């Protein structure tokens, strides 16, 4: 599949924004983080910036962005519509929670409860985002058990790393809790990514050139003449091949920069002690950011669409 920059930014940035929002709510509501005003302004500002810029970016690949509001109407059947509706509804409790923190200086009690409701809705929104992809049968690399779990874990992981960096700068809250959460999430999402790559390589093909044409009864099917000499929309959008050539190398880059290096850096904070916390948490965040962009690019570029069976692929 063609990896559109707008969608890569959307899924990584708004994922990280929702992840950060979850940790702001959980850490605040359970008393791991005081309702410091400056911390709140920076933290919520960053979370809302990531979420909103991601959502706006997702409208960037539309042919008719001025009609984007229409996408909110079909929540009964469409995951994309559900995602849009959920994203807008989520601004309610998360906005109230941010106001409670910044204006009233509270993040526990009732405010904390509103925050936790917001956190749950953030997770639901990320899940809906993942289902846009995981619901497509025509793309087996997306329609599997790993896709939604991956989106959720990586949103929480990137959010936790931002939270860690913020806490390091402000010297606020129980930073050891955030360190443990970050290490656990980096480990889990790294393992999940490995399992995902293994699955898309070893899962039996869902469709073949024989089932696509129905000509399997005569033998192995191969295309001998394409309908057109130049690439059409289908081949440009669905027949993206660049990543597969470098897939192995890119997977290693994603794994090392996205999960292994950040995990080592965050774990090193525990060993080296708090004087290094700011430098190490920022390095971990930058590294994970690069890794997640590569990971997301691969998620799109590596995924094969069954329509390519009509254009010379033998199985998908």
């Amino acid at each position, binding site marked *: 599949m063609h990896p559109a920059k707008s969608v890569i930014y959307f899924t990584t940035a708004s994922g990280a924004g929702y992840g950060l929002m979850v940790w702001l709510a959980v850490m605040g509501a359970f008393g791991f983080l005081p309702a410091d005003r400056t911390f709140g302004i920076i933290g919520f500002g960053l979370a809302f910036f990531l979420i909103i810029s991601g959502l706006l970016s997702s409208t960037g690949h539309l042919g008719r962005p001025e*009609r984007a509001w229409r996408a909110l109407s079909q929540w009964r059947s469409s995951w994309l519509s559900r995602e849009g509706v959920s994203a807008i509804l989520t601004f309610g409790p998360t906005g109230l929670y941010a106001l409670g923190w910044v204006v009233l200086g509270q993040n526990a009690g009732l405010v904390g409860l509103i925050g936790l409701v917001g956190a749950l809705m953030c997770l639901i929104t990320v899940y809906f985002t993942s289902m846009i992809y995981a619901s497509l049968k025509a793309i087996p690399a997306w329609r599997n058990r790993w896709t939604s779990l991956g989106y959720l874990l990586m949103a929480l992981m990137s959010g936790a790393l931002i939270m860690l960096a913020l806490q390091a700068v402000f010297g606020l809250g129980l930073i050891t809790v955030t360190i443990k959460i970050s290490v656990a999430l980096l480990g889990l999402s790294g393992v999940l990514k490995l399992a995902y790559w293994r699955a898309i390589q070893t899962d039996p093909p869902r469709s073949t050139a024989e089932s696509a044409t129905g000509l399997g009864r005569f*033998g192995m099917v191969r295309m001998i003449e394409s309908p057109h000499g130049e690439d*059409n929309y289908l081949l440009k959008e669905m027949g993206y091949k660049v990543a597969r050539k470098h897939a192995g190398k890119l997977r290693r880059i994603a794994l090392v920069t996205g999960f292994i290096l950040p995990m080592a850096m965050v774990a090193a904070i525990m060993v080296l002690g708090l004087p290094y916390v700011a430098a190490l948490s920022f390095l971990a965040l930058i590294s994970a950011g690069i890794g997640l962009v590569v990971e997301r690019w691969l998620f799109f570029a590596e995924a094969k669409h069954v329509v390519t069976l009509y254009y010379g692929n033998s199985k998908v």
Partner: protein
Amino acid sequence: MTRLPQNPSKVKLGLVIDLDICVGCHACAVNCKEWNTSGKMAPLTDIDPYGAKPDGVWFNRIHTYEAVDEVAGTSRTVHFPRSCLHCDDAPCVTVCPTGASYKREEDGIVLINTDICIGCKLCSWACPYGAREYDEDEGVMKKCTLCVDKIYNENLPPESRVPACVSTCPAGARSFGDLGDPDSDVSKLVAARDGYALMPEQGTKPVNRYLPPRPKKVGDAVAPRLLEHHDDSNDGAGLLARWVDKVLSA
């Protein structure tokens, strides 16, 4: 709107494509483009049509495949027109976030309302058959309409009220009709020839059917005898020529 019809009628209009007959001439694609570029889904934009990398929206794409059985040492070459199958369980309809993509309750035709389409392309990702193409110029998706503006058009003579691809096929490889009615001509044709759906494992329940190429007849493997020209008659030749012929034949 983008939910599939809650009370679909029994009518399921669709195409039956006979792969035994299709000669791969692309006439269906050309006439489809001709009709539809000024039809409901108009225009079928072309980008750089005379340049080095022409691209454009087409509702029909004609592939040619070879099916090889290496054990038996046989192969078949099959021309294969590909277009929208107007699926009963159309995933392109249910993924649409705006309601632009819909399946008609009365006859099952899958259409796009290009006035409200936002061009998110998700329907083209959901379709296993590549039936939907993006119009870069208009920023919306386009697809086969089963010539909805032709098949019901009372200004046309009844025999012309079939999709453009069907009326133009010089070999008669394409048939149009109600596949929801077991007694219709197309349904009988499908039953008689073991017509099949493409990629049933994708769960989309396509309406269109393909008829498989007929088995080869025994003896087909032997090439026909060369024709030799034997012309013993001298009808119409001149008197002198006929005399020379008679003398030399003696």
